[in-house]
């Protein structure tokens, strides 16, 4: 019986894979059905996950086990209810309070983290002495890193017209940016092809048994 359900799962996966791939030829009812089922399943999955992994362990269980000790949890519960009140047009304005609180705390927490990780640590990482590098390849790499960072930042300096030394630096900066966009595109292509490989390994391995899986 277990084998039957396992094979059934594979066949359902195969049918949905073909239904989604059929869009590459042109839009069609099979694709639409697969897309709608996927959306419906995803929404249902998130509702279940929210109830079982967020609401029950963080709210209902602590309150049912020790209501007096966890009474403070009623505050976030109340704010959560206010969020849901958005669906009543007349009381929609009440949802602004939890949203304001959420944005404020998130911004406060994230500000320090991003400042340290994305500004201070990243800046420190570019403060290198390239001439102390162990080999000439590393030295060239570190020089490119320093030049690329400075010129890239200068490209985004808009308080002075980009001409003369600033113009040249900004132009060098945009070349570095172009290279980074190219690298990002290359990685994206690699990622998308990896997904296709995964699907074909499933079709040719799990379904057709043509390759080892």
């Amino acid at each position, binding site marked *: 019986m277990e084998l039957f359900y396992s094979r059934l799962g594979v066949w359902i996966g195969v049918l949905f894979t073909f239904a989604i791939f059929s869009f590459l*030829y042109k839009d069609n009812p099979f694709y639409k059905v697969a897309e709608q089922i996927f959306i419906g399943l995803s929404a249902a999955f998130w509702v279940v996950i929210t109830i079982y992994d967020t609401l029950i362990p963080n709210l209902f269980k602590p309150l049912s086990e020790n209501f007096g000790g966890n009474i403070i949890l009623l505050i976030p519960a109340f704010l959560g209810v206010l969020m849901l009140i958005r669906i009543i047009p007349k009381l929609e304005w009440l949802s602004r309070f939890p949203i304001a609180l959420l944005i404020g705390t998130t911004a406060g927490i994230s500000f320090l983290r991003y400042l340290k990780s994305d500004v201070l640590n990243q800046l420190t*990482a570019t403060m290198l002495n390239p001439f102390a590098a162990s080999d000439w390849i590393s030295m060239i790499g570190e020089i490119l890193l320093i030049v690329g960072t400075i010129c890239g930042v200068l490209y985004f300096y808009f308080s002075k017209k980009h001409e003369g030394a600033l113009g040249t630096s900004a132009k060098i900066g945009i070349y570095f940016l172009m290279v980074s966009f190219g690298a990002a595109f290359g*990685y*994206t292509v690699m*990622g998308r092809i990896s997904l296709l490989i995964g699907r074909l390994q499933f079709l040719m391995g799990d379904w057709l048994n043509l*390759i080892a899986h």
Partner: protein
Amino acid sequence: MTNNKKVKQIDRRIIFLLIFIGVALPLLITIGFKIEVTENVQKAYDLVNSLPPNTKVLISFDYDPASKPELHPMAKAVVKHCLERDYQIICTALWPMGVRMCSDTFESLEKDFPNKKYGIDFVNLGYKVGGKITIQKMGRDFRSVFPTDTGGINIDEMPIMDGVTDFSDLGFVFSFSAGDPGIKDWVMIAHDTYSVLTSGGTTGVSAPAMLPYVNEQGQLTGLLGALKAAAEYELLIDSPGSATNGMDAQSIAHLIIIIFIVIGNVNFYKNRKKNRERG
């Protein structure tokens, strides 16, 4: 002009078909292109290879089936390496389906490591909502975030959790990440706040955004980017798997795409030249 453009445009379905054939055939017929190990993968491997046996390490499965083809092979390779090194692996997930990805990884390695026991050598603590906030709390008090595992067993009853109170009790943190929340949150909190060695693997789309964190500050100790990095890791641990098998297909598909980019650019310059000549 419109007719001219139409004549020169290749039907996109022909490109799809060629890519499909270019990926499918190398999966059936092995070519065996050489795989070179890159510096970032070597760094991640060296980190995993550097600690003494019985070190407790944290692996976070921050992805779902949509990214499984890219991240699952590298997760299997890294977990296998950790089991070979006799580390004690604590698994968490910042994505709900990460829990299933973790159990699937260990199930697939069960045959290779029949003596490894759940609760002693590895544990699946499951999913927690909250991203950064959750990691921050784990750094202060691990047990308040994960009082039980996915099966509801109290972590105090598991030998693997003995002595684990916060991040200072971990050898390193490794995140397999498909987006947000994910590896960036681990860098920000685990490394930049609690100074735990942090590494990970990402999808190809996310990799360029994470590469700057592999820097002199050691925000990330190496990085595995997409299936290619997984194949490199499989090569390092001498255990070829699905990533290695997919590398021929990856190379052929890239070659086809490069050819089409070249054709597109040649056509673009030809058209531009013609238009200039016409004035």
